[in-house]
């Protein structure tokens, strides 16, 4: 090779090496610059959910300011402390992992939120843990409407304990344990109840408040299942990579991909993509549009709830536990939405309108085949004809409406023989017959609770099986 050619090759190599180093420096500088930018203007990273949270709080400070103290059961001087604590709770993530139910509330002890390490939210005059035999212990299960998003003294279980103890119909003091957990529906509640029994925590009574989340999680899969599945998939992929890596020493590319995706340059690209996509959506529809309703899916939801209630009832029976099932009020059913001032028209009910479509189906199923449990309370009608705001946001009850609901539940529990005779001080008062409660339809509950569940559903509703 001539000297000229060598010189030429060398100059190409030199040029390439310069280009390589310059590219690295430019890439690093861009990342640093963007990182600084994101530190200064974090709002550019906010997505729809974050915007919604901000907007929700902003509305409570502006358009809904006159309601906020009353709705949340707070004194005016408590609002700021409550708002600060609710942000603090939000910063914990709200939930932690739990076997078989996927998650349960985090432990947190504040002024307004008292979440026990044992997985329940405190009530006023909280009972001991483990529960003691000197009390009549009730475990109350449900979703976030039960857990309560306001201060702990306004949550349904707290009000129930207070109401029952003040009613002077019970010979023993009642202690209620709030096992409400955000996003839980009947399947998770059942497993949670069973887990508690496995841990030897056997209450005297259990109450399940359901309806809203059963229709929200229409497929019967728990909140976050996709994320759990993705974790599992990633783990399997890692395991495969690990196998390869240990057998042949090939590098694990997945962590490198993860790292690259987390770089500020990559994030900036994502934001740009998201923004243009969001603009297209806003151009298409300015407001929230409910997803289409699939009637067959709603029938399946009803069936799943009925089966869960039957299973819970059977388990409670062998432990001599009284079990009651409450079908909760939801904004989409028998409530005049003109009074739902907390509803944000931009975001609507965000999928919770499904319960509004599902409730009439459930009602008609139960009319034909009453649920084979001893205590079933149809509380969904209690808001009919109420011309006032009952919800603090899309679906959670105001402190005042919680009281109304609790009184309704407690009266029905006492009247329907939920409490054993040795616990009642005198014969329970009969509650007035309410046409709105749908009791006429549901009062024909069977005494033969051992009848197989499959006979409950109307023919054609059963989705197959061995028999």
């Amino acid at each position, binding site marked *: 090779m001539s000297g000229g050619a060598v010189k030429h090759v060398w100059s190409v190599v*030199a040029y*390439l090496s310069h280009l*390589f180093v310059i590219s690295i420096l430019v890439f690093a500088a861009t*990342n640093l610059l963007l*990182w600084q930018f994101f*530190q200064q203007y*974090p*709002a550019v990273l906010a997505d729809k959910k*974050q915007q919604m949270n901000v907007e929700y709080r902003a509305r409570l400070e502006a358009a809904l300011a006159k309601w906020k103290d009353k709705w949340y059961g707070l004194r005016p001087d408590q609002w700021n402390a409550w708002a600060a604590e609710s942000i603090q709770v*939000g*910063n914990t*993530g709200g*939930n932690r*992992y739990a*076997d*078989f139910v996927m998650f349960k509330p985090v432990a947190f002890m504040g002024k307004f939120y008292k979440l026990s390490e044992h997985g329940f939210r405190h009530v006023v005059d909280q009972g001991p843990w483990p529960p003691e035999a000197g009390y009549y212990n009730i475990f109350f299960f449900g979703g976030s409407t039960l857990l309560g998003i306001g201060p702990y003294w306004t949550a349904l279980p707290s009000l129930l304990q207070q109401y029952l103890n003040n009613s002077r119909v019970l010979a023993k003091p009642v202690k209620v344990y709030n096992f409400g957990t955000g996003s839980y529906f009947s*399947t998770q509640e*059942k*497993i949670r109840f069973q887990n508690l*029994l*496995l841990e030897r925590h056997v209450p005297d009574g259990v109450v399940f408040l359901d309806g809203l989340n059963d229709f929200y999680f229409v497929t*019967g899969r*728990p909140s976050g*299942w996709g994320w*759990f*599945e993705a*974790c*599992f*998939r990633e*783990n*399997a992929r890692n*395991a*495969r990579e690990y*196998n390869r*890596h*240990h*057998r*042949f*020493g090939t*590098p694990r*590319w997945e*962590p*490198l991909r993860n*790292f690259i995706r987390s*770089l500020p340059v990559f*994030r900036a690209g994502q934001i740009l993509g998201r923004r243009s996509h969001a603009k297209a959506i806003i151009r298409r529809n300015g407001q929230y549009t409910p997803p289409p309703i699939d009637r067959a899916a709603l029938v399946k939801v009803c069936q799943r709830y009925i*089966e869960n209630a*039957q*299973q819970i009832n*059977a*388990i409670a029976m*062998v432990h001599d536990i009284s079990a009651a099932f409450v079908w909760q009020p939801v904004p989409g059913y028998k409530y005049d939405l003109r009074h739902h001032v907390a509803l944000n028209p931009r975001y609507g009910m965000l999928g919770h309108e499904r319960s509004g479509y599902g409730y009439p189906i459930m009602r008609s199923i139960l009319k034909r085949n009453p649920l084979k449990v001893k205590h079933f309370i149809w509380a969904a009608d209690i808001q009919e004809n109420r011309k006032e705001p009952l919800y603090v946001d899309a679906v959670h009850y105001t402190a005042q409406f919680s009281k109304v609901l609790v009184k309704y539940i407690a009266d029905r529990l006492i009247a329907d023989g939920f409490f054993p005779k040795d616990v009642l001080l005198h014969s329970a008062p009969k509650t007035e017959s309410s046409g709105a409660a749908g009791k006429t339809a549901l009062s024909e509950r069977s005494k033969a609770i*051992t009848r197989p*569940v*499959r006979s409950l559903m109307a023919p054609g509703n059963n*989705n*197959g*099986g*061995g*028999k």
Partner: protein
Amino acid sequence: MSAYGERSKAITRFFAYLSHLVCICVLLFVAANLLSLLVFRAYPRILLPEDLLTTYNYLARFSGQLKPYRDEWFGLQQGQWESWEKEVTKRLAVGLSGYEDFTMFRMRPCKGLFFSFSEHGFRNGADQGPWPPGRDYCNIFVFGGSTTMGTGPDWTTVPSRLQEYLNDSGRLKKPVRVYNFGRGSYFSTQERILFQNLLLAGRIPDGAIFLNGLNDFYFTDGRPSGWNFFERSFSEGRDEALQWVANRTSARPKWQKLGQFIRSLPVWRAGEILGRRLFSPSAATASPDRKYKPAQVSESVLREVIRRHLENARQAEAVAHAYGVSTAFVVQPVPGYKYDMKYHIALDPLRGLGRHERSGYGYPIMRSIVKRNPLKVRHFIWAADITENRKEPLYLDAVHYTAEFSKILAKYIADRLIADDFFPKDVLPVSALKTEPSGANIQEEHGHATAN
């Protein structure tokens, strides 16, 4: 030339040197990695960690000292071993399990010559029944861990043998179809949840059998296999979500991922191996010190396991009763209980029973508890004693049954089910054959348990 020009020339020269140096370093680094990679490809065993070595050793033993037994133990015909081994290796490489709601994991569907897992969550057996189960059959779901699922070919599992035996016995009016819902690492809590989920989905069998004992005592804390992975993933995910909510830090690069990648590079691995060899040479070779030593488990822990097991049985039966499903709870044979370990030739001397000895400690306590207070379930079968006095290999590895022993166990269970009126009246013959009362069945000693 001016001083300014001199300085700029010097800077350019310095930059040129620097860029050449960077490029040379990068090239050298890539070359070193490629070289290490070639070495590892040529000699893969130098990299194997303990868990992968165990897998290799497990299979290697069947090509070495256990070769004379392998076809018989796995129920294979002569000449099938190589294709069976190939399929096992392939299954292990792609991963056996996938995520499932509430039970946490399940076996991934697959279709092979020896391993067939349905997408509906059961393992196929010989003459597998349809899904959903048909009304013309007496349908039985069998739940359990890997001993129920079976580690041999599809047709050698306990559920498959059970179906075969019940149908061949001519003692039932209807043909029986058994569905093998055994899954690796499952114990009574997961089995109960899986059973409930199937009922929720409208899959209602005539009978459900739970074969338990081994894994309940393995997972003494009652937490599912891999719970720490789920917990870690959950908290990592939550932390990421919180960072995302906080916005400020969401643009921070994930340096720990870059660290993981760098640690996986062949050069790094080579450094690790060199370090291990230089500073702890004993770690690379097997020594008597590395032999598995069973850890002591307190009696209170074992009693808690038994209580959980019995509580799960009680709950499962209560739910089953509401659907009119017969249930039977079988306490399975385990190598640590009433079995002469002289005959357990498949036991790896280095790894021993690997925590499975706990069932050996727990079974006598369970037996005495059940003797004093007969279980409040209708059908309880104590099958743990059937290994007593058997002077032959019954296990093909530490705990899994040989094809022949699966047959024996299936026959024992089937006979007890028929004798104990497990089957609905429309399935049972006019006079169900009563098997002779077995001294091993402690429920028999105390009369029938009462349904609650």
